[in-house]
């Protein structure tokens, strides 16, 4: 766990403050970020419009019809005073079955070729560890997760794809993510999952929340189809 942070509070807009907790990305930040998240939610109550945790920060969007700038600052400082890290046991855990295959994950082979290892070894390394959902963004339900093993770190594609299918599992630098819906994207795609990440009709709209723990599990084509997966190959760029 990271040492207790000294939170800094910055003005970022008429109705928003940034809580800056850390200066670098580290999974060990998360217990503190989650603790700050609950403390701020509790302290602001109905005056909180949105709270967006990310790798090292939390963005507080508050209701200016209820709070002045000074009142919002005072509430934030009070919430962050004497923060205790959230217990590791409070993190939610997910196992995501993925069909790793070049037809739906073209960069499986390019990464294997660059490292001079087999695609199976790329899969093994991607499945070997638990990832932390640092932040959600880019699209509803899209979680930025990490950190992937250093050898797998791969820069984004020089030319992003126009259409990355829903369920595509990708890597960019030392992060990994799943596209919840079809969208443009520049991440290196390794495979596809049938798991629905974002479903407005489900009580838990987004499967992932900041701070969740995620592990990938390789499945074969038949299992992927059984789970309702779409085997349509990735389009040529």
């Amino acid at each position: 766990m990271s040492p207790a942070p000294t939170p800094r509070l910055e003005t970022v807009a008429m109705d928003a403050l940034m809580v800056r907790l850390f200066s670098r990305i580290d999974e060990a930040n998360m217990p503190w970020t989650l603790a700050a998240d609950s403390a701020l939610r509790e302290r602001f109550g109905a005056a909180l419009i949105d709270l967006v945790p990310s790798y090292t920060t939390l963005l507080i969007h508050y209701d200016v019809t209820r709070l002045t700038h000074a009142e919002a600052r005072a509430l934030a400082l009070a919430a962050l005073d004497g923060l205790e890290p959230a217990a590791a046991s409070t993190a939610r855990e997910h196992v995501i079955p993925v069909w790793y295959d070049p037809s739906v994950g073209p960069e499986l082979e390019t990464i294997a070729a660059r490292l001079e290892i087999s695609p199976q070894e790329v899969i093994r390394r991607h499945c070997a560890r638990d990832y932390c959902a640092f932040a959600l963004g880019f699209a509803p339900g899209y979680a930025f997760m990490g950190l992937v093993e250093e050898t797998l770190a791969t820069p984004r594609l020089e030319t992003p794809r126009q259409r990355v299918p829903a369920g595509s599992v990708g890597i960019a630098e030392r992060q990994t993510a799943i596209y919840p819906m079809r969208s443009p994207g520049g991440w290196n795609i390794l495979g596809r999952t049938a798991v629905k990440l974002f479903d407005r009709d489900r009580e838990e709209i987004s499967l992932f929340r900041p701070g969740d723990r995620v592990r990938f599990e390789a499945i074969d084509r038949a299992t992927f189809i059984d789970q309702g997966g779409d085997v349509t190959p990735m389009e040529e760029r």
Partner: protein
Amino acid sequence: MAGSNNTAGLQASAQQTAEQQTGAHMAQETAGGALVVIQAGPQALVQDQGRFGVRHLGVTQGGALDWVSLGWANWLLGNAPTAAGLEVAVGGLTLEAQSRLTLALAGADLSARLDDTPIAPYTHFVIEAGQQLVFERPRHGLRAYLALPGGIAATPVMGSLASVMREQLGGLDGQGRALAKGDRLVARHAECRTRRLDTPPDPVAAGAPLALVTGAQIAHFDGSSLFDAFNQAWQVDSRADRMGVRLTGPVLRCRLGGMISEGIPLGAVQVPPDGQPIVLLNDRQTVGGYPRLGALSPLACARLAQCQPGDSVRFAAVTPQRARRDYLAQLARWQ
């Protein structure tokens, strides 16, 4: 705490209104009049004041870019400021009434006419069954807002009717798409209590500077860049949409390169490595990693959304206190 009893917050009350709306929709679907889309134009979207409480799940804010003009259109019909209306960008839209109803128009002048009669923004008017409301092309400003009695009836998604095409959320069918030929806009109420506006505001207010609340990262921009940012004119680029508006002008230099991604507020003025700022608006991505000069006030965002490519704008640094005072004054006009 200041002002908690006398001014209803648009954002805090959005969720509640949306919930009431679901019930109202069921009960009154046949009560209100309806308009059918004859020609859709480049972009007409159902919008309210936005979707809140779900940004930590990657869901953007959405909502009317010029929320002030939507507020006025609603005010003219006696609607709550949070009621959903139609955001008409550029023009090219033709609607036909299936039954008699009262409508109100605010925001840009898109050469609107009721059959052959010109309709000025900031007025309400009656459309009879079979009459057509046509938006041709922008004469002043870029986005017009049309209000229906009680707002547009539809089922909210996550508390809001805001249409976000990229996220496939909101609007008439919940999928966030723009209006298409054959779509029906149904009013939630059959009746409304119209109001008149004696001195219509100018949604563009050309020449007036855009209020910018400066952020902490401003210290990382070099001195001459900061001088330029607030003393030179910026041109609105054609690369502008509901996610953001690019501005071109002097190159701004920042000592921070890429940053670790963090939450982005409405109106954030981010400066990518090319030194040309992008003002992030309602449909922005929820996190990002470019340094920011600060964020435009919500009132300034509304005015920027009415600027056409090539228009010239300026920034004026304001304190959050000043921006809040102006914002609350606008809300108070609708009380």
